[in-house]
């Protein structure tokens, strides 16, 4: 079974965000980066499928040069090889343009399955997987909890709202967006990190299409609610809070 995993490099979760002058995007000089966590779960699912059924796991990532670090991490965890579609971040702010770049790299690989996270922690459009399926002409399912490949098809368990689930059968090839938390993530071993250095990373230059989405401005959200912020000594703020809950909110 040949599995492609589409991964993204995103700013680390606890990054302090500063809006760049001009208000169009972020100041990137003080950001550090990591693998998008939902994609890490997609990679884990792919690696476990390969361990069970054999085959190959190929990682595809669209991003600037720095994304190479995240690709190496995926290889160190056990992916066999990778394709890096190089493109500047500004060209990747539109989910459709990004998916087009990824689809052209995936097309020539003719995989059985394409896995990706259900959304990214940065832009959070939650659609790259579905758009990929449409561009590639593959079937798809989203928010997948379990993957059971069968002959020329795959049976998946999808999460619906309010604690409901559903099994869906799909013909291969198929794109699945994987729900976070369905398996325990592995760490890269020292051996894995060593091996990753010798694994193939094919670099292709992406030529992005004109964006279909215009970001007028980005900004820190305005407070919609009057929030009383308490800070300082823990004992002092704990006392103040209990006073407020007792006499102002009257809930204690």
């Amino acid at each position, binding site marked *: 079974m040949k599995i492609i995993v589409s991964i993204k490099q995103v*700013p680390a979760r606890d*990054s*302090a*965000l500063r809006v760049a002058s001009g208000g169009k995007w972020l100041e990137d000089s003080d950001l550090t980066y990591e693998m998008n966590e939902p994609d890490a779960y997609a990679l884990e699912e792919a690696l476990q499928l390969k361990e069970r059924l054999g085959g190959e796991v190929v990682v595809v990532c669209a991003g600037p040069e720095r994304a190479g670090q995240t690709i190496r991490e995926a290889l160190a965890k056990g992916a066999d090889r990778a394709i890096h579609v190089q493109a500047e971040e500004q060209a990747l702010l*539109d*989910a*459709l*343009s990004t998916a087009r770049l990824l689809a052209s790299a995936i097309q020539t690989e003719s995989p059985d399955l394409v896995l990706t996270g259900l959304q990214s922690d*940065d832009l*959070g*459009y*939650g*659609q790259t997987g*579905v*758009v990929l399926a*449409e561009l590639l002409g593959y079937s798809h*399912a*989203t*928010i997948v909890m379990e993957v059971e490949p069968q002959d020329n098809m795959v049976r998946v368990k999808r*999460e*619906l*709202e309010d*604690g*409901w*689930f*559903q*099994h*869906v*059968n*799909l*013909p291969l090839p198929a794109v699945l967006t994987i*729900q*976070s*938390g369905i398996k325990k993530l592995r760490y890269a071993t020292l051996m894995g990190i060593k091996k990753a250095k010798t694994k193939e990373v094919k670099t292709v230059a992406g030529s992005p299409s004109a*964006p279909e*989405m*215009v*970001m*007028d401005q*980005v*900004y*820190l*959200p305005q*407070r*919609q*609610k*009057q*929030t009383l912020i*308490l*800070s300082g000594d*823990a004992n002092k*703020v*704990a006392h103040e*809070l*209990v006073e407020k*809950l*007792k006499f102002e*909110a009257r*809930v*204690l």
Partner: protein
Amino acid sequence: MSVLVVLEQRGGKWNRMSFEALAAAEKVSKASGKPVRAAVLGAEVDALAQDAAAYPVDKVVALDHPLLAQYTPDGYTAALEQFIKAVQPAVIVFPHTYQVRDYAPKLSTRFGKPLISDVVDVRANGSVAFVRQLFQGKLSADIHGASDPQFVSIQAGAFRAAEPGGANAPVEKFSVNLDASQIRSTPEEPFREAQRSVDLSAAEMIVSVGRGIKEKENLPLVEELAKVLGAELAASRPICDNGWLPMERQVGSSGQTVSPKVYFAVGISGAIQHLVGMKGSKTIVAINKDENAPIFEAADYGIVGDLFEVVPALVDEIKKAKA
């Protein structure tokens, strides 16, 4: 040209987010001067279409076909593609449900457009822009499509649902051409896993814990806080994903929706998926070391500080207050 809202139903019952999406569509309509049309998809949806006609819409169109009885991305996409090509709306508005997340990006791709997903507000200063949150709510962005049609989905709870009232709008049918061979996926019956033994929705007080707790071994700290308050213990998704607390204690879009008198969010940053599950709480207290954490947007009282210092101090103070 119109603003088309696609209402969502399952088994003849509305998803109530449909009418929040309708409220957003009304706002786009007011700004652009284009009338609001509603579409209902399914098999034998006459009654639902009549029901929708009582809402503030210009027209309701039923896309009725036996192959739409059960949701499939292929069926829904094909049906809406035909309809949108026929009527050419300027903006198509969806509720941001799990179902919409499954097919709307596929549909918009057929028109060479991305979906402007999970929108929290509509800005109308001359032109229309859609406000969405990035970085799990830490950043906002005003976005618009480069050209029409624009495809937009609306976050749960972002708009007050439109109400029925006034004159009934006309109801029309649109005949959809669908063939079983176009539908590639075979869905089975939806099911629920073992009944929940914890009903957080009935809790008066909830202490909820997030990533900030760092390790499972630190959980007794918040358990103690819940105990002195007489509160139920809950968690954000990562805690349940790690198996530190059972899934039935998860609050958020994929867990339970709660509205207690007091909700303590301890070490929870406040990703959108969590906020939609708890923002109906009467009083919200947030404890987080990051002063920019979006949870403070939702909170009535916020403590910026180290939960490992603040929570024990709070336990002591509550004991004193209750003594």
